[in-house]
């Protein structure tokens, strides 16, 4: 869980960095070129396999763990005071993880599938990947789902990031406060970064602004 989770956190940084190119205002040229070069990079293709494997392993392990942990207490407490001794997010990683997984499936269906599998997007004479992003984020349902998912993802990271270091045995009196601070900072940064896309693109759409071409 820890190794795959921390790897997925690294991927988020790369994903955010790429997405930020949507704000360049160059008609999505930079963003499209990055997407194109990734598809044709053997290194990225290998990383892509590791990425999908990480997601699957993370989900399978989480499911097995949740089942085993639930079985470890067959009779529940009539009064459970867990809320007095631990945070809500630390007790509900399975729930938040499920929402994130659902979003990942929708996200792949919207972007990965048409660009990489069916070839409906990003090829000659078709809508570019950047235009597809602007279109999807201008949709109130998708933008709303995206916003909710990234907020939940930020909470998931706020516990998961620090928890990963604890599981790998990298915590002690000196490092624990640092990891917790880094974990919260990273979660806020990722949350705000990714949440900006549905908010800004949707607001731009409502105001009738073409965000992709503002710098041209």
């Amino acid at each position, binding site marked *: 869980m820890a190794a795959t989770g921390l790897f997925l956190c690294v991927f988020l940084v790369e994903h955010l960095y790429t997405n930020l190119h949507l704000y360049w205002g160059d008609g999505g040229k930079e963003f499209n070129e990055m997407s194109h070069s990734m598809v044709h990079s053997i290194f990225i293709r290998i990383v892509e396999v590791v990425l999908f494997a990480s997601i699957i392993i993370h989900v399978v392990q989480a499911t097995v*763990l949740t089942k*085993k*942990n639930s*079985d*470890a*207490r*067959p*009779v*529940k*407490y*009539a*009064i*459970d*005071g*867990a809320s*007095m*001794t*631990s*945070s809500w997010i*630390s*007790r509900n*990683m399975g729930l938040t993880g499920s929402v994130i997984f659902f979003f990942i499936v929708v996200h792949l269906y919207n972007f990965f599938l048409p660009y990489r599998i069916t070839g409906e997007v990003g090829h000659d004479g078709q809508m570019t990947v950047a235009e597809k992003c602007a279109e999807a984020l201008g949709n109130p349902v998708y933008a709303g789902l995206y916003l909710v998912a990234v907020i939940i993802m930020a909470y998931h990271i706020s*516990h998961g990031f*620090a*928890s990963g270091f*604890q*599981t*790998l*045995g*990298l*915590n*002690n*009196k000196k490092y*624990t406060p640092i990891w917790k601070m880094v974990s919260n900072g990273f979660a806020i940064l990722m949350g705000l970064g990714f949440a900006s896309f549905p908010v800004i693109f949707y607001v731009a759409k409502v105001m009738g602004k073409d965000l992709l071409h503002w710098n041209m």
Partner: protein
Amino acid sequence: MNLTLKVWRQKNASDKGSFATYQVNDISEEMSFLEMFDVLNERLIAKGEEPIAFDHDCREGICGMCSMHINGRAHGPWSGTTTCQLHMRAFKDGDTITVEPWRAKAFPVIKDLVVDRSAFDKIQSAGGFVSVNTGNAQDANCIPIPKDDADASFAAAACIGCGACVAACKNSSAMLFVSAKVSQFALLPQGQVERVDRALNMVKEMDAAGFGNCTNTGSCEAECPKEISLDNIARLNREYLMANLKK
């Protein structure tokens, strides 16, 4: 103080069990929680009813026998306190107090509030010791130990094996207990000989007993009457990882 007690009653391990409600009047706030139970039991016996079975021994907060889950909290509302050291001034006149046994598959209920914690004994037997020849102990000054390590080892050794960590954890994980037992030896020169086997065998026994897995919620540390630190769990994870690489 006048209190309403909702107490888990269960005739034996195979009985389904249910809550029984008792009105307990004229309780002094200076009493310990267990003394309040003594009074209730005397009254039940006087009425010809079965007294409530509960674990207790030293009543000084060091034996780890008392094990009540009180109003949703292991050992009640005070932090760093065993049930025997919890006093009735923690409650208000007229309160309703719900008392349950530790809930975990690895700690089956024997009767009422008494659970079988022999799973901890099995884990301890799997490696929570150092094998030394009998004879006189050598001069302590012959074994230099850094003060910080000695302090951390002593803090881990303060674990009384009461099981509050398991009771408080939403996964019924015994990681805090095992990590304390592993840490107390891993930090000392005497514990190095069996270091690898200790980590592997104790974790193996913990998993076999049916405890859940640690998801780092921190409830165990918050409820531990001896305030054993989560740092020990990180140390156990290190020990286990290194042991697997070596063996």
